[in-house]
């Protein structure tokens, strides 16, 4: 505001020196300059419009030629056949599958890391943790894809069972241990006599601990027995994609957590809450919508990723048997576009060419909607927090 006032004043003072005509010219030049600026700034909006327009224009002929039904309901993908079959259901399902898988892995980890960065780590450590995340975000997707295809897939194929077992032990053991402690504590809390309470608590701890160990061991041995037929499968891709989505989730949720003010934190501490309780019961609810926006952005990163899924998902268009089998090869929308265009661009104008644009349009619409949603959410959170 202040700077504009200053400007106005300077303009007025100029009036005494410069003739009316020259002032008019100056004003004209200023308007012209500003409109050029505006034009360049609206370039982005024009580009977005163009993207929508040109992808849609090339997608429509497909629906004119083949209709909507086959695309969404059939899973027979034989674009090179005569006549070709264009059932994309399995491909859409594959996209959904790896997106869900990577979300399940990356969201808990990403939120935990974001909390750690914003509330737990001292500033000096945070300075070193942030570049790690930035570097993870910077590694080109094709390098991740190469890793997934050349290093991770053979490893999964030959050592799949043991890897799954170790992952299960490392991930599940700490959480089960915690659950055992909490449950035995909660169950014995009703008992009045402190000495007996401790005894019963210890007893419960041992009983549940042994149970949990048996459970861990049982699931572990089942996992170890699994033989993975192909290393290029949905699990491989989900794991790699989750690491690619992590940086987005971490940085956006960290911003959301930082946006929650000091007052809320201090209020909670003053009431005697521990740091964990403060975070879980006060800060996370306040930042929840921002974190949701982060999750949406992370999901979009996984859904829109091309190279990793193209190289390491196996590219086989079918719905796995049973439907949740992550150890089977799948095919995704992005990989199909990338892989089929090479053969289809010689037949420009055919259904085979335009179906790829239909897939692109589907991706574009999904990303557009989720972007709008996440943006709304962030705006709303900012309003709520600033209103308090």
């Amino acid at each position, binding site marked *: 505001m202040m700077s504009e006032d200053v400007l106005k004043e300077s303009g007025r003072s100029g009036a005494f020196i410069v003739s009316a005509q020259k002032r008019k010219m100056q004003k004209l030049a200023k308007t012209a300059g500003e409109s050029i600026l505006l034009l360049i700034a609206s370039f982005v909006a024009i580009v977005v419009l163009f993207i929508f327009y040109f992808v849609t224009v090339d997608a429509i002929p497909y629906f004119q030629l083949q209709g909507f039904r086959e695309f969404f309901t059939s899973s027979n993908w034989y674009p090179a056949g005569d006549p070709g079959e264009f059932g994309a259901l399995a491909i859409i399902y594959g996209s959904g599958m790896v997106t869900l898988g990577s979300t399940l892995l990356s969201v808990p980890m990403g939120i935990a890391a974001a909390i750690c960065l914003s509330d737990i780590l001292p500033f000096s450590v945070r300075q070193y943790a942030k570049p790690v995340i*930035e570097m993870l975000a910077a590694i080109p997707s094709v390098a991740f894809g190469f890793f997934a295809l050349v290093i991770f897939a053979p490893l999964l194929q030959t050592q799949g069972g043991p890897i799954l077992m170790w992952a299960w032990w490392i991930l599940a053991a700490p959480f089960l241990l915690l659950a055992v402690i909490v449950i035995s504590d909660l169950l014995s*809390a009703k008992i009045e006599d402190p000495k007996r309470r401790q005894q019963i608590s210890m007893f419960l701890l041992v009983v549940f601990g042994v149970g949990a160990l048996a459970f861990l061991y049982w699931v572990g041995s089942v996992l170890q027995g699994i033989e993975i037929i192909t290393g290029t499968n949905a699990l491989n891709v989900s794991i790699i994609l989750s690491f690619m989505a992590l940086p987005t989730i971490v940085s956006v949720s960290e911003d959301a957590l930082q946006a929650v003010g000091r007052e809320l934190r201090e209020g909670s501490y003053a009431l005697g809450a521990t740091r964990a309780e403060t975070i879980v019961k006060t800060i996370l609810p306040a930042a929840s919508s921002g974190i949701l926006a982060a999750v949406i952005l992370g999901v979009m990163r996984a859904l829109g990723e091309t190279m990793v899924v193209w190289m390491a998902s196996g590219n086989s268009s079918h719905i796995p048997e049973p439907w949740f089998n992550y150890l089977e090869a799948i095919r995704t929308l992005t990989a199909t576009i990338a892989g089929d265009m090479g053969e289809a661009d010689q037949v420009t104008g055919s259904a085979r060419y335009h179906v790829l644009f239909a897939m692109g349009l589907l991706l574009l619409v999904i990303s557009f909607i989720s972007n709008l949603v996440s943006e709304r959410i962030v705006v709303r959170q900012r309003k709520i927090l600033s209103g308090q």
Partner: protein
Amino acid sequence: MNLGTRKILDRSFTAVGFGSIAVMGIALLIVLAPIIYNGIGSVFFTGTLEHRNMLFNEFGRGDKEELVKENAASEVYRKQIYGMLDAFEAELETMEPEKKQDYLSKYGPVRTALQTLIGPLPGEETAILTRYKYGQTRWEKAEEKLHEFLYEAKWDYSNPDVMAKEYFVSRAAEFEGTSLVKLFPYVEKHLPDVLRPRFTVYWGFLTDSSVDSHIFGGIWPEIQGTFFLAVGAMLFAFPLGVIAAVYFTEYAREGFFNSILRSANSTLAGVPSIVFGLFGLAFFINTLKVSESKSVLAGSLTLAIMILPTIIRAAEEAILSVPKTYKEASLSLGSTKWNTIMTVILPAALPGILTGGVISLGRAAGETAPIIFTAAVSVGSAIGLADVFSSPTPALSWNIYNLASEHEAAAEIRHVQYGMVLALVSIVLLLNLSAIFLRARISKKLKG
């Protein structure tokens, strides 16, 4: 809940947070370590005489006299091997037809294996493809091929319930009772004398063009292509992005139109990269016809659109972080708004804007999906600067995919793939590290 449990929960909560950050760091290490280790192996490795011969014949590098001497030394042992082959072939002629047929069918693979190991055998026609003109150029590959030469790989399908198992049969055992049986232990013992392995530093990997679709030679065309594409994208996107950021920060008034522009920006940032590729194909190539088919220009334009939102955001942040007092001081001295922006705000924000630019440059260099349909080809030589408007180029990111998944000898040239990945990753990470470094300096400076 009693206090002890609450404390345990609190601690474990902290541990989970540390754990996830540790997982990220470990993931980074797990991904980078093999890439760096194997990638360095494409430049530093134990090269054989065949490698030096290849370099001399294809690129005209190396000491001729030294090579002649080495080849002569190798020839002594080669003569022995060739002699054994000749002796066996003569022996074959004396056998009964049936037995001869049987041995001949086994002898073919032996010759082929030997040829891949030490290079063309005398009496064969000169191969057309360069890959058949030389033996193994890398010692660790030669050792692999030696195993293939000594043992025949067979698959055990006897149990239909499990995957077929591979097992090895000694070739020497198959030729028991013939003169060829001596060949196998001889080759095994004297392979180092034939191939003369020596530690090699092959910087040419980065500066040579490829020979016979990356079987030999280096990756210069890809590095150059990546450079052209990324710099081209920056040439378009950087000025546009900075000007747009100036508009958003200094001129835009809050309102419906402005919020649409901002939404457009975040939408563009969220568009999947493959859709940019489709758009580039449909708009720049099929509609605008900036070039006949794929070209560096079309690829750069597509990449420019993709990195535009990042540049705008970074530039906006940089401009906003310039202290307000700078601007006010300038305006109070009677400078116009435009003058203030050009002489005070932009210079102060420049390091921040450059940081964003450097990060975007890295992103443009690493991205594959947008250039698949618009700029990338699998094989090709380095293009001149004049060709960027009309011809496509190989690029690191695309060729990593292509060599790893589509090349007919993908498993034979892992070292080239690793070398390419390492080159790409180090370009991108170096750009990012310099950005991080730059930003640390800025924040120090702003703190005073």
